[in-house]
């Protein structure tokens, strides 16, 4: 489904991703962990095609398509979803109208009829309940005045509605208390259907107690330096990123 080969990418002429390889098969959950500055968030932005993130080398394909050739919105319509670490506010645009437009953009791509207002409302209400946000959040401006935790839940609500094939969660656990973490994780787990794949980017092992990964990768200095199963995350939890060498230890301290 997703295949990343020897990816090199830079931001403002600074190399951040330096030869990254990753294969994600349908239905798999891959966790990407790593110290600050390893390039975790950059990976999400590069894959989703954000301006300013330049790919200098390598290939990325999603469902057989050359991802790097596509515009941001085309990648999204191909089923790539990025849950933001810091979701931005769009004042005056209600969550409802924003998501309706975006759900219908996805449907159009799949050759489906747009949802009517009533059909959409039904789905939106269900998703809203699932992430335990009050229904009036549908009417409120996108992320407008939301708390950090509400923003994260709102991202998961969007993910549920958009039914993407690949979800990249960029530190969806940061700043959440245990209850909110549970809600976010439940939302994600409900979407695991054996076909949909996930890349869970996180700094802490904690999230992985709730979202059980099939694979854990350690990203350091723009490369995956170690891969393993869920037990690798526990190892990191116990001994930090010490095995990466002294410089990372200090960076963490």
């Amino acid at each position, binding site marked *: 489904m997703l295949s990343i080969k020897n990816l090199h990418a830079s931001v403002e002429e600074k190399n951040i991703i330096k030869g990254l390889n990753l294969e994600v098969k349908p239905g798999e959950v891959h966790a990407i962990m790593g110290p600050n500055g390893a390039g975790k968030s950059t990976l999400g932005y590069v894959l*989703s095609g*954000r*301006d300013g993130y330049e790919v200098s080398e390598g290939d990325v394909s999603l469902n057989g398509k050359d991802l790097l050739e596509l*515009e*941001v*919105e085309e990648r*999204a*319509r191909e089923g790539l*979803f*990025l849950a*933001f670490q810091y*979701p*931005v*506010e*769009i*004042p*005056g*645009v209600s969550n409802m*109208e*924003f*998501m309706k*437009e*975006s759900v219908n*953009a*996805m449907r159009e*791509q799949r050759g489906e009829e747009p949802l009517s207002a009533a059909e959409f409302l039904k789905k939106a209400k269900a998703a809203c309940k699932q992430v335990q946000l009050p229904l009036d959040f549908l009417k409120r*401006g*996108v992320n407008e005045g939301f708390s950090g935790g509400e923003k994260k839940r709102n991202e998961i609500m*969007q993910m549920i509605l*958009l039914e993407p094939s690949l979800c990249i969660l960029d530190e969806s656990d940061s700043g959440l208390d245990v209850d909110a973490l549970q809600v976010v994780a439940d939302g994600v787990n409900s979407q695991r259907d054996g076909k949909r794949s996930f890349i869970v980017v996180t700094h802490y092992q904690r999230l992985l107690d709730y979202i059980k990964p099939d694979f854990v990768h350690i990203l350091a200095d723009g490369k995956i330096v170690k891969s393993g199963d869920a037990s690798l995350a526990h190892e990191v939890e116990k001994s930090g990123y010490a095995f990466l060498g002294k410089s990372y230890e200090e960076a963490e301290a």
Partner: protein
Amino acid sequence: MSEQIEQALERKYEAGFYSEIESETFESGLDESVIRRISQMKGEPEWMLEWRLKAYRSWLEMEEPDWAHVDYPKVDYQAISYYSAPKSMKDKPQSLDEVDPELLRTYEKLGIPLHEQEMLAGVAVDAVFDSVSVVTTFREKLEDAGVIFCPISEAIKKYPDLVKKYIGSVVPRTDNYFAALNSAVFTDGSFVYIPKGTRCPMELSTYFRINEMNTGQFERTLIVADEGSYVSYLEGCTAPQRDENQLHAAVVELVALDDAQIKYSTVQNWYPGDENGKGGIYNFVTKRGIAHTNAKISWTQVETGSAVTWKYPSCVLKGDNSVGEFYSVALTRGRQQADTGTKMIHIGKNTKSTIISKGISAGNSNNAYRGLVQMGPRADGARNFTECDSLLIGDKCGAHTFPYIESRNPSAIVEHEATTSKVSDEQLFLCKQRGLDTEKSVSMIVNGFCKEVFKELPMEFAVEAGKLLEISLEGSVG
């Protein structure tokens, strides 16, 4: 990113077509004889001609204002034709069947079908084409309610007492340069009278179309809401795409007597000129309303067109407890320049005013808000709240705010809030990551920014205004 936005902003002007209609157009130039001819064409009584001539004589002694934050070559008032009307209108068609079908087609193309059965059920339309009113719909239904809705040229003859009493009572002949010019040469416009205690049974609207070349449009609208009455009125405007600038200098006067309410909405989409600033309408307009005791006047405007806009719909809050509101969205792009805002003149006690202004600047445009809040010595307990927000798209445009506050009453409260923001890369990225293209993303963000104003528009037109912004922002993203 900003390049993509720029592209997305390259707009098509959809109302830019010209209609082949045989017209009777005065040769260009302005002197007393031209005014006499206009008055004669309209079959006006002597008092009206006298009024026009007085205005003309004062105009000659006035100077064109230059304080606005706009820059344009001097208008040559002798190069303009002051009257143009479709020839077919000369014999005054009695019904729609007698109106030149090409005229009807023009309005249909603009999305304003004039056949009553095809229209939005709740809206009556007065269609003004260059210097004349082509047709006014639903007149009988309105007459049943006692409401007068007709071209002002007709009102001058049919209801001279009403017109005489109120014309120039809010915007005097000598109010300003453009108002004086309008008073001298105005050709048509709408007249509305809502009798005491009557709620006008439908929305009223006037659609202004400039068609002929080198003509100016000088319309005059007068709305009188008698005690305890209510009316909601909307105007829309478009013009063909041309390389020459054309002048539109209108005057609108609103009179809200005790306990009356007038809601006046404008969707202004005059041709804005091309991306290099060639052509477009100069929109120099004076709009003012006077609110008597407990009366309320509400201006809502969505300004997307015109090369240069100079416009300050204002409220004179004369009566105690009267209320004035001004909700504005002004979008400029390309080389457009807008200097727009309002004046809230608080005279009576406990008068209240609200100003919400949303300026959106893109391309190389300049967008200025200019607003005066004046609290008079008698205005005990008067209150004003002003919110002025600017949204910048790209980095070559300008947003300016010129608030003037004059308070001569210590008990009056004036609040002013202003913000400036940009369509951020983060916002665009979020929208696009959710599958929306750049155009849709920008127009959604802009629509969100304008929401507070759009919700003030009558429902049918809120949708239209949203669409208009979308068209305005429409372009060819590669």
